[in-house]
């Protein structure tokens, strides 16, 4: 049973359809990259997977022990966060909130979890630093640690390398690949087709209002090479 299954999804807003007829499954341990032009509906798809938006039609089914609120999310940075006074520790801990329920404070285990995830992502030494003063790569790591506090099972990443320099981008992709190696399912939106092909196990290519391709990476490469594509090499 797949962790996430989309059946004949149609996405759009205010009556306008952006993408229709999306059907795909995401299984435990997959690394799915969603590629496509700007405005093709990648971000809308991700927001729909997170239940932030309701699909125009079709449905999303979670399974394999994943509840709909057990999906970690690495959003793109918002303007509010640029001058937000918060320490890295405060940000990372806020990922544990969905475990708290009505309890107003974090338990010792939740605090411990936040510390472990900071250590895991190499930002333990930054715990007391102010979030807004970190470099782009460090901020992304803090947000990734927060997402890991929310869940270990499946992570949705919205352009995790946006705005990072080449070295930080490389490190970010290696880090994500390592998390995937440890069993976390990854779903990532990317502009960077070369990196997607390098790290992903599956590719979903959307454009022109429908899914142009969904399947394992090897098929995607073969298809593009035979079409005379191959710009990603």
């Amino acid at each position, binding site marked *: 049973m797949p962790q996430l299954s989309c059946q004949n999804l149609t996405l759009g807003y205010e009556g306008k359809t952006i993408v229709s007829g999306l059907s795909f499954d995401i299984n435990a341990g997959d690394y799915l990259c969603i590629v496509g032009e700007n405005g093709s509906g990648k971000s809308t798809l991700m927001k729909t997977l997170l239940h932030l938006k309701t699909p125009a039609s079709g449905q999303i089914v979670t399974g394999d022990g994943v509840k709909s*609120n057990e999906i970690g999310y690495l959003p793109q940075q918002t303007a509010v966060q640029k*001058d937000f*006074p918060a320490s890295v520790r405060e940000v990372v801990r806020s990922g544990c909130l969905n475990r*708290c329920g009505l309890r107003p*404070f974090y338990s010792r285990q939740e605090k411990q979890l936040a510390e472990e995830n900071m250590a895991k992502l190499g930002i333990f030494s930054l715990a007391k630093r102010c979030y807004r003063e970190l470099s782009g790569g460090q901020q992304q790591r803090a947000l990734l640690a927060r997402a890991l506090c929310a869940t270990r099972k499946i992570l949705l990443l919205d352009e995790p390398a946006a705005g990072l320099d080449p070295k930080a981008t490389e490190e970010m992709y290696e880090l994500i690949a390592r998390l995937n190696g440890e069993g976390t399912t990854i779903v990532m939106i990317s502009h960077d087709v070369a990196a997607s092909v390098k790290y992903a196990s599956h590719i979903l290519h959307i454009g022109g209002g429908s899914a142009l391709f969904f399947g394992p990476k090897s098929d995607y490469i073969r298809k593009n090479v035979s079409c005379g594509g191959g710009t990603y090499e």
Partner: protein
Amino acid sequence: MNKLALYFEYPFVRYAMIVGVLIALCSSLLGVTLVLKRFSFIGDGLSHVAFGATAVAAAMRLTNNFLLVLPVTILCAILLLRTGQNAMIKGDAAIAMISVGTLAVGYLIMNVFSKSANISGDVCATLFGSTSILTLTATEVWLSAVLSVAVTAVFLVFYHKIFAVTFDEDFATATGIKAKLYNLILAVVIAVVIVIAMNLVGALLISALVIFPALSAMRAFKTFKAVTVCSVLISVSCAALGILISIVAGTPVGSTIVAVDIAGFFAFSAIGLITRRIN
């Protein structure tokens, strides 16, 4: 000093001090979130709503205008914070519209229906709170105290949730935090604070009470907890100092408190600059 001791013999001066400190406490707790959510002006908008409702209450000869002013303000707060996400009229425009509209209608109603000979005096008192804090009754003091305790309790219980919803609403929603519910709670609490605060500084100066302590604290501190604690301390001490000064110097209470808040803002800006130089 003797003069102060003499003044504090009077119960209404003690009431003013108690209510002033409580209001400063509540308004600064919410200030940090409002400033960060880009809702600095909601205090202004809602206080004008409260002004309009007060005028209606006066025209209707209600003995306790809390009963009308509080629900109306809460309703408007919910509408304003809800339109923040997706609405025909965007956040700042909606606030401006409601703010100016209710101010005008309130003044109109006051003029048409008021029996008082000194309308401009009444309006001035409602807008700038020049005297009303010194005419508080024991019941109003108790009511303010109970509401303040409730506001503080709600803030403490939901502190981490408010942080998460302020920092990243999408993430919070995606991981199962009921962001809409917490926005609603925030709206109600803001409305309550504003209605209480009208007695102290008047409708026009409430925004200052909400945003100045938060902005001052954000100059000097870098974690959410430190900023929240610091803005409470700043707000409470500025309010206490402002009330003392206004008693001794005979200045209007509301504007004196705001003037002290402004001084505090510059002091903390300087501290922030200096600490950044050192680091």
